[in-house]
């Protein structure tokens, strides 16, 4: 059988984001993949050094929409380290709540896309409808459906009163049974199982070699989660179970995400039940001296690391971030080996790639 090369991307119906794959196939089996990135480079890293430390709270939020809370969260944590600002306990808990709400929405989006790529659009719509509960929650608590603007340097910009907390509790109560039902569909539906089980396998050894992070690592049996390995904000006071599965296929990654969405509901309830009293965030802009710091947090896609260096001026001297998708997309080479052509888009989507984060 002869081999030939198919270009997939950078703009392609089966891809959600611009990425270029040069796929060599033999019949309908993938033999080799070349991944080329760089199609949506916008120069945001350079731009951060041309904006003030406070403008960058908003700029880092605009890097990516699905992890739009994790970027400013890590950025603010780095600046707080440099300036030696202590964040109040209430603000820490509220930060956790903001990032867990974002996590549910992000995971449900990816799981919905999986159903869409399988061709099961009714389930896709169903999951997106369930996700609307979280979208409404974000809109009500933060004022925006995606860029929630929760963080400021030294704390958070929002506060939850009894009205906000009861709305949160009510939405979670609506969400939970629907999420359980979605998990049941992904566990039992034959269309989903046939297309995703044993597809795009990344075994534990390969996962360690590729140094994958986030749900991709956890679906390959690596119990690595920044929230428990290096607790930040209020995570040291919370009970956050780490979900792992052993198979490392597309299905396992989806199920890990669903389990984490379920856990996020529990974490939100823990936070709401023990929300400490105190200030949320300073409305004065603190002075940030020269210095450097590294901060990391668990974004929906995995470990997000921020490095910030300041020189005492209004703008940071250097801001550098390493996003989880950067670690995960290299593993695509392993996952796509000997895959069927029809599964390429499913496998690519299963790492939940965020190209706008990675190429900024």
């Amino acid at each position, binding site marked *: 059988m002869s081999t030939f090369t198919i270009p997939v991307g950078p703009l392609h119906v089966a891809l959600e984001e611009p990425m270029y794959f040069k796929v060599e196939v033999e019949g309908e089996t993938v033999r080799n993949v070349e991944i080329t990135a760089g199609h949506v480079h916008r120069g945001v890293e350079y731009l951060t050094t041309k904006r*003030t430390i406070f403008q960058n709270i908003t700029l880092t939020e*605009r890097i990516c929409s699905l992890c739009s809370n994790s970027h400013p969260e890590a950025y603010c944590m780095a600046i707080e380290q440099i300036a030696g600002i202590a964040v109040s306990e209430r603000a820490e808990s509220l930060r956790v709540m903001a990032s867990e709400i974002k996590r549910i929405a992000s995971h449900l989006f990816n799981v919905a896309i999986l159903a869409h790529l399988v061709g099961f659009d*009714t389930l896709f719509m169903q999951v997106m409808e369930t996700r609307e509960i979280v979208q409404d929650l974000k*809109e009500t608590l933060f004022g*925006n459906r995606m860029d929630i*603007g929760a963080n400021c340097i030294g704390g958070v*910009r929002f506060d939850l009163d009894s009205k906000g907390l009861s709305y949160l509790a009510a939405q979670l109560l609506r969400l939970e049974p629907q999420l359980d039902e979605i998990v049941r569909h992904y566990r039992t*539906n034959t269309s989903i199982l046939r297309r995703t089980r044993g597809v795009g396998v990344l075994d534990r050894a390969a996962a360690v070699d590729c140094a994958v992070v986030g749900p991709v690592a956890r679906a390959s049996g690596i119990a690595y989660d920044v929230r428990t390995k290096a607790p930040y904000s209020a995570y040291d006071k919370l009970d956050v179970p780490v979900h792992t599965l052993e198979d490392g296929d597309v299905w396992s990654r989806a199920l890990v995400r669903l389990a984490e969405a379920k856990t996020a509901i529990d974490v939100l309830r823990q936070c709401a039940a023990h929300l400490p009293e105190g200030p949320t965030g300073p409305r004065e802009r603190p002075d940030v001296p020269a210095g450097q710091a590294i901060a990391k947090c668990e974004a929906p896609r995995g470990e997000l690391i921020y490095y910030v260096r300041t020189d005492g001026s209004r703008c940071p001297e250097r801001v550098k971030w390493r996003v989880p998708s950067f670690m995960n997309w290299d593993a695509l080479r392993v996952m796509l080996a000997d895959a069927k052509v029809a599964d390429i888009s499913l496998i690519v989507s299963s790492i939940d790639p965020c190209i706008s984060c990675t190429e900024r």
Partner: protein
Amino acid sequence: MGFLGVLIRNLVAGPSTDPFPFGETFTPATLRGRVEYHPADCVACRACEQVCVGGAIRFDKTPEGLRFLLWHDSCTFCGLCAFYCPTEGITLTDDWHLAHPQSRKFAMVEEGTIPTIRCAACGAQALATAPAAALFDHPPTPAEVEEMRSYCPRCRRKVAAERKAS
């Protein structure tokens, strides 16, 4: 069965989307929409201009006074201006009806001017900004605010120091 139950349930429940534009759509009061500027509350500290990443906010001097300009087409509705505003001189409303034809793009502006006045005490030219809270040792009455507004910054400090001392 499986998914069929969901379909039947959806059929009975009817559409889950909002009937917009023929009916109301979900708009929480906290939504970050069109920005409003309140010149009477502005202390002209220009914090909003400094934290605005899109460069949507600009202050410039006109013969009438200090003019505030916000162009909604550059605004990202992040709300950082309102967060760092010490006096709620800039707020975000829940009005999200911002779609407009290209021909109207330069009309998407929020504008306001802090007038230039002659100080009621010394006659120097000054801006009639809202007085800073630090000038009072108690929550000021509207009349006290208006009186303080009529002074230049130097006379304000003088008057405030005299009152605090007495």
